[in-house]
């Protein structure tokens, strides 16, 4: 595959309830990403969006987001009903043709208008699982329980992950949950859904992220420190939780292998661990040792703008390389309950 580079990225601050509409808070994010990429809107040869009609409670909600792109004159454009990380994947594929040199990917979601515990059961098999009304917290609790029973994690470790994420987020202007009490304080809190406490859960967030990609020649021409996509891949597992070993993430391991994570040491990993225990599970699936800095941004436990959060991980991993001198980083995005579908993107500096 041709090397494609990230030359610009931006995110909105993650908020519990954005007063602005989705296209309104998306517009400055897209503008900033393009500005940072040192290109013009008219240079963009392909645009791909990621969003979800169900979050907005409206069919064709994504059509409104075209306003934020400024689709006039007409543009070459597509949309995935997936996290923006998959929009980036489609844009990366499109750039492989070599006939265009700049592409834009963005993701956006506004969770505040709806009730996640009512919406997400609709993401499950409509015949056997939706009628059970299992919400994401209940599903994640099943997974955490399986890990606790197997002895691959403790509640103490889960709290430690939460404390580190929230502490890291204190320095992240885009994060929503910043700073934390100590582990003992957190463990004195009651369960929300056993064995998960409040700190094991992500916040409910509104937000957006955007990334500008370029072919190698274009990236070198406009960008001082392009961040190279060395590999990107995504895989899915069976849907029925009973068909899976919830204490492992096989699809993450597959995606990581196909993305080439073992071609060199990983310094930073930005993981879409939406629940605390998932961070440990993902670390193991990706073979990340203690030397790897995980979620220096605070990760999804500090800000969880659904449909933008996976792309934000890619933006944060790119930021670690372009602004903090990290030489190799990976980003992870997920879709579905209990990490059913996973994407891994390996990034490198020069």
């Amino acid at each position, binding site marked *: 595959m041709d090397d494609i580079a990230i030359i610009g990225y931006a995110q909105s601050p993650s908020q519990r309830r954005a007063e602005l509409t989705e296209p309104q808070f998306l517009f400055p994010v897209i503008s900033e990403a393009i500005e940072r990429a040192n290109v013009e809107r008219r240079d963009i040869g392909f645009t791909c969006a990621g969003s979800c*009609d169900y979050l907005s409670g409206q*069919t*064709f909600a*994504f059509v409104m987001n*075209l306003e934020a792109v400024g689709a006039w004159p007409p543009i070459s454009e597509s*949309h995935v009903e997936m996290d923006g990380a998959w929009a980036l994947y489609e844009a990366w594929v499109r750039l*492989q*043709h*070599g006939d265009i040199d700049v592409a834009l990917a963005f993701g956006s979601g506004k969770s505040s208008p709806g009730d996640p515990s009512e919406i997400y059961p609709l993401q499950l098999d*409509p015949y056997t699982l939706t009628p059970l009304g299992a919400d994401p917290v209940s599903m994640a609790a099943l997974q955490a329980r399986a890990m606790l029973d197997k002895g691959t994690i403790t509640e103490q470790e889960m709290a430690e992950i939460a404390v580190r994420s929230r502490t890291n987020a204190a320095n992240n202007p885009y994060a929503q949950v910043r700073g934390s009490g100590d582990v003992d304080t957190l463990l004195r809190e009651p369960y929300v859904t056993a064995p998960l406490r409040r700190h094991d859960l992500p916040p409910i967030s509104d937000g957006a992220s955007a990334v500008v990609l370029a072919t190698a020649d274009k990236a070198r021409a406009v960008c001082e420190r392009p961040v190279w996509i060395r590999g990107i891949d995504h895989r899915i597992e069976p849907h029925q939780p009973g068909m899976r070993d919830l204490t492992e993430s096989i699809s993450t391991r597959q995606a990581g292998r196909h993305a080439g994570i073992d071609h060199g040491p990983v310094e930073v990993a930005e993981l879409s661990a939406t629940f605390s225990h998932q961070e440990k599970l993902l670390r193991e699936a990706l073979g990340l040792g203690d030397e790897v800095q995980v979620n220096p941004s605070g990760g999804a436990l500090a800000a969880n703008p659904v449909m933008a959060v996976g792309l934000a991980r890619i933006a944060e991993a790119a930021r670690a390389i372009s602004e903090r001198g990290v030489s190799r980083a990976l980003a992870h995005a997920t879709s579905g309950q209990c990490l059913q579908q996973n994407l891994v993107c390996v990034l490198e500096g020069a």
Partner: protein
Amino acid sequence: MSRPAAIVGIGQTKHKKRRDDVSLPGLVREAAQRALDDAELGWTDIDAVVLGKAPDPFEGVMMPELSMADALGAVGKPIMRVHTAGSVGGSTALVATHLVQTGIHDRVLTVAYEKQAEGNAQWGLAGGRSGGMGAGGIFAPWMRSYMARAGAPEHIGWMVAVKDRRNAAKNPYAHLQMPNLTIDEVKDSPMLWDPIHWHESCPSSDGACAMVITTEDGAARSPHPPAWVLGTAMRSELGTFPGRDPVRPQAGVECAHLVYEAAGIRDPRQQVDIAELYVPFSWYEPMWLEGHDIAGPGEGWRMVESGETQIDGSFPVNPSGGVLSSNPIGASGMLRFAETALQVRGRAGEHQVPDATVGLAQAYGGAAQYFAMWVVGSTLDAVDQKR
């Protein structure tokens, strides 16, 4: 990198008002299995799956690629879900094509569906709000505007309806089977959205479509003739702004010119043998003939009137019966793409256009603002043969 891509497997379901005999995964699997059978491939031969459909609330299942992963044989593989309004079936096929052309995968299964009887399509098409006008309500004034602009007589819409419904009678998968529909019956059917009568509107269908797209090597091993992708294009524009021409949207004009250029077509009317255009309401046939510069201004309706777009005419449009006869929305675009491939493979059965070697497919969506098109040929130089 860009290498040739070929369609070697095509499958579709019987399209019906209500497919109570299958679940959602059963519906997509029916089409996908037929596509694999056509290609004589098994589920394990597939590298990746690209799924497309219109809004999730149509069936009430959010991100259905998750619950359909097993039925689509996607476990352990990449699967993507595309959604670009009515054009989605076309864009989904294009995303799958790009995965092959760029060398990322060798055999990609692409599937699109809608099971509209699970929900209320009119509600969904109104943006999930009550009291909406439906798609017909949005498009009707633009059709009237076209008629005024082009000086088109009323009976053109009736002729398109009769043609497509009679064509559908030659297509066993088509939803509406009306081999004897007459102009008078169309004209006398209830007025829905002026100028659209009942018989000039698409139905609401349950159905799915699937294709297997592969490389030159894959095509060489295919048991049946392949269809080659000779050009692809996508264009989108804003749905409403001052100065927009919704009757002849600029995105549609540009998309057409891009796909012609990609395929090396200089004169589509001469160099294309068969077109499958997204015509959910009768008047969109002449509107797209002009909107994609197949016909000059005011010439589109004359092509209809003179019979050129009939299955035995000089420029057959929608020999399958088109969206007017089967409309599982998410699949409707892919059906256009698949039908052109069927035609250039010579495998369209009773609705085959003799000696078709170059086909043009188009899907559009939103407020006539999203466009996806491809040109397929029986050989890689099928267009050159027509110079």
